[in-house]
């Protein structure tokens, strides 16, 4: 609670089955993993390298470093990302890290790059690949690369967010490069198709499957690495996220207990909202539980609760501190985000926040929050108020994204009754032969998260 406490002593390592229990050093572990990845990328003989990167593990840093090292070794490369925002972000980081490295930003005629990139003289933007071909690094979205023809293939490529890329998207661009480093987060949202693709389920080249699944199905001997540390998630969150969403590929937090702090300048008034905020500051999690009811998904009471919680969060003058850090920093609106499952829920929360006079807080769906990071997040639980669970709402990727955006604390707003809903969930799912069963199971993951949240529950009525 008090700001001037000493940073805690180096903590004992968290559990979750990682080697080297005594004296675990996250920075060293991460560095080792990174060196191994770069060695395989630069000097390995395999055509591909796969890197699993849990939330906040430094994926973008890895991509930038790999690009720089390849360029420095005289190997021109292309970078494939999935959205324009991701491309612009990577280009920005690259140019900031190395202002001397010429970067080509290839784009479609109706998707001009972010004007902020113009401040980097090393970045040239064009719609024609010929104009950029001689630059050491050319970066574009998969969709744009798919239209590139009649170019000599690159020897190297880096594919970012490869787990979120669909197999057919990879098919469209794989001819452009000989070898590639594939980086992505296996725990987040999977690609999908609005059209049924069951006839190819079980085929190793199922076009609707994730690109990495297809890649590994045909090239099972590719070196696979894991980034073992999440620098974003605090010690209060990494064990839960790792256990629930990455059961077979655990990771741990880069910070120990007490190395991330959230404190409030204004004392709590004892009301439900304040008590859950205090709980979150103390333990990194808070569950604001509303009375049980079946509601449509833009549940007005839940939406209002989220808005009021955010407003109270700002009113109490929060400060965050991260070891070894200078001093505590104020918790401003831009460091807070609200996550929902559906767009209309996000729209409703935005409207409620505007009405409450709160400005500058990001409100978005899990899909759009992927890849982003905040100090404190407030989540409207996907199953809140529902009479039953559906595959969409149980999808682990969604809950994983919502629960892994924060550096300090995550607050969940949910109506009571969800454990019962899970309990009564019918399971008569079809089973497709030849398809590897994917873990974690949506039910189990949801259950694990709820069980944990129950320990930090504050009941409240509007």
């Amino acid at each position: 609670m008090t700001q001037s406490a000493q940073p805690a002593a180096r903590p004992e390592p968290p559990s979750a089955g990682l080697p080297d229990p005594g004296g675990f050093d996250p920075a060293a572990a991460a560095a080792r993993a990174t060196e191994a990845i770069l060695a395989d990328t630069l000097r390995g003989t395999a055509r591909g390298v796969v890197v699993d990167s849990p939330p906040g593990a430094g994926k973008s840093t890895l991509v930038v470093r790999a690009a720089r090292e390849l360029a420095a070794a005289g190997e021109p490369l292309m970078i494939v990302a999935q959205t324009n925002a991701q491309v612009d972000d990577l280009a920005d980081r690259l140019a900031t890290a190395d202002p001397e490295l010429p970067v080509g930003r290839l784009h479609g005629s109706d998707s001009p790059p972010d004007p902020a990139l113009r401040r980097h003289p090393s970045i040239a933007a064009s719609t024609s690949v010929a104009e950029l071909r001689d630059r050491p690094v050319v970066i574009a979205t998969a969709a744009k690369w798919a239209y590139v023809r009649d170019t000599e293939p690159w020897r190297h490529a880096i594919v970012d967010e490869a787990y979120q890329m669909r197999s057919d998207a990879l098919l469209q661009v794989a001819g452009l490069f000989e070898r590639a480093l594939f980086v992505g987060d296996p725990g987040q949202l999977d690609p999908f198709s609005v059209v049924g693709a069951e006839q190819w389920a079980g085929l190793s080249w199922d076009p609707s499957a994730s690109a990495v699944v297809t890649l590994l199905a045909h090239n099972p001997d590719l070196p696979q690495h894991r980034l073992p540390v999440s620098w974003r998630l605090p010690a209060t969150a990494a064990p839960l996220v790792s256990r629930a969403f990455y059961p077979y590929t655990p990771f741990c937090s880069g910070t120990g207990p007490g190395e991330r702090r959230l404190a409030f300048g204004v004392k709590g008034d004892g009301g439900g909202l304040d008590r859950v905020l205090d709980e979150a500051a103390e333990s990194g999690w808070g569950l604001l539980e509303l009375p049980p009811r079946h509601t449509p998904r833009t549940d007005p009471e839940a939406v209002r609760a989220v808005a009021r919680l955010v407003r109270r969060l700002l009113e109490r003058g929060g400060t965050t501190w991260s070891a070894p850090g200078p001093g505590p920093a104020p918790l401003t609106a831009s460091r807070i985000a609200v996550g929902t499952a559906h767009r209309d829920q996000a729209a409703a929360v935005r409207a409620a926040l505007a009405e409450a006079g709160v400005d500058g807080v990001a409100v978005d769906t899990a899909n759009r929050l992927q890849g982003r990071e905040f100090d404190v997040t407030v989540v409207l639980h996907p199953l809140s108020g529902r009479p039953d669970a559906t595959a969409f709402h149980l999808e682990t990727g969604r809950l994983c994204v919502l629960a892994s955006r924060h550096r300090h604390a995550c607050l969940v707003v949910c109506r009571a009754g969800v454990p019962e809903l899970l309990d009564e969930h019918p399971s008569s799912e079809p089973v497709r032969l030849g398809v590897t069963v994917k873990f974690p199971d949506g039910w189990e993951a949801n259950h694990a998260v709820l069980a944990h949240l129950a320990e930090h529950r504050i009941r409240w009525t509007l």
Partner: protein
Amino acid sequence: MQTLARAEAVAAGRAVPAATVRHTHLGERPVVLVPLTTAGEAGAPLGAMVGTDRDEPTLLVVPQPLDRELRFGFFAGLASVLLPVLAEYADDTEVEPATRNREETELCADAPQIVVPNTAALEYVRLVGRSTRFLRTVEDPDAPHPVPVPVPLLGRWLTHYAERARTPGSALLLALTSVLTRHWTTGQSAMEDQHLGALLAWIDPPAGLDGPAGAARAQTGRGPDGLLLSPPAGPATDPVFDNRVLAPALTRYDRARAAGDGPATAGAEAEVRRLVASQLRPTWDDVWRGLDLLRALPEGGHVAERWKRDRWSFTGHRDRVRAGEPPQPKRDDAVTAAQKLAGRETAQARLMAQEALDDPLAMAARRLGGEAFAGTVTGVEMAYSEGRRPMPRPLVTLATPDLPQAEPGAKAYRAVPGARSAQTAALVSVLPLDAGGAEDGAGEGPGPAWSVTVRLTGGMGSGRTPKEGSVPEPGAAVAFTLFEHDPRGGPALPEAELTPWTHGGPPGAATGAPGPADSPDPVTPEDYL
């Protein structure tokens, strides 16, 4: 909106419209096929009614479903009905003029349309296609169990039709329950709608009964002999029918045949035929009845265009058969699978857009979902783009009851009568309107609740002044959609020989297996179990 429609149907005791136009092409002379299968066997047919004339169906029956010869006879019979129809359409062609992308080509003027009762029957057609297209015929000297020559050709056509049916908006092969449920909403669940008899009872209740009662009768009503009053549309038969009536008749046939007794065999066979026909006829009549109901709907504007794509599909396969190409492989290779997926996604987007443009009810659903908005123009402010050649970029503000679910900057489209393609626009802002009538929501047509501003970005000609009529006036009624009206396909995919290493390389290279695509299925020494 579906939920509301179902509730209304419950209240009305009959189905309510789900579409104001017919979104599916209906040919003049569709071929109706009602198959029945034997329980337990993969694809073993029991019988079928097929034909283009509702009063004169061709009845095909397999009196001993386990006998391979009789089974092939069934397929041969099916081929003898379907192949001539296919050939007839194959020869009637017109010439399509050359376009930018291809030269002058021949296109069949029309294509045969096959209608089956439900999706299970459609799956069965797919299964028959698979089971017959690799069979070896009498022309092949090595074939251990040769089949009549037309059978594999039938298999290839059925496979093509069944695969095409996976494309959204296609009408070559129709499952009637799917088409009916697209156009009417009943007061029962979607699952129950799969029962053709019940579905028809809701849409067109029999005299003296209402929807639910008729449906209940169709689903479970049994006569004094224990048989269902309305036999299942199949392909599965009613177990009571199987056990109580069919099994004894088949046994009689077997016995007579084993004893070599000619007249008794003929008699027993006739009996089996009569029984199977009794199960098929009601469904056969139901299918024609359903087609009549659909024909009464006016055809949607874009139906002909989608049918033309189906005609291309038909023509393409006709050409492949004529060129002597091998039958479709058992499993798609990587590039084909990706192409099909992409093609279907485009077809889906196109279908949904066209249905909304053709049918106010479909557009209403999109508006409710925030994907389209319509209202009255309240203001137009002229503006121009930056740059050397300023182009008109007017701001149009309209008052609408619909709330678009999109960010500022999202693309919008407006259908302009007489224009070749939709006018493009970009969403600028969405603000609540403080109209008095918006609050009480209990009135008949709630007043507009939102003021939406868009910036027109196209469709105004190439000069500084917008073309006449391309910018709406204040007071005009306009409608914008957030979806494209004519979605284009995506980028081209690599050739199959150039399948990249990520997807296993070119087909056949990696596995070394000699293309499981082409080898016919191994034949077991006996089929009698």
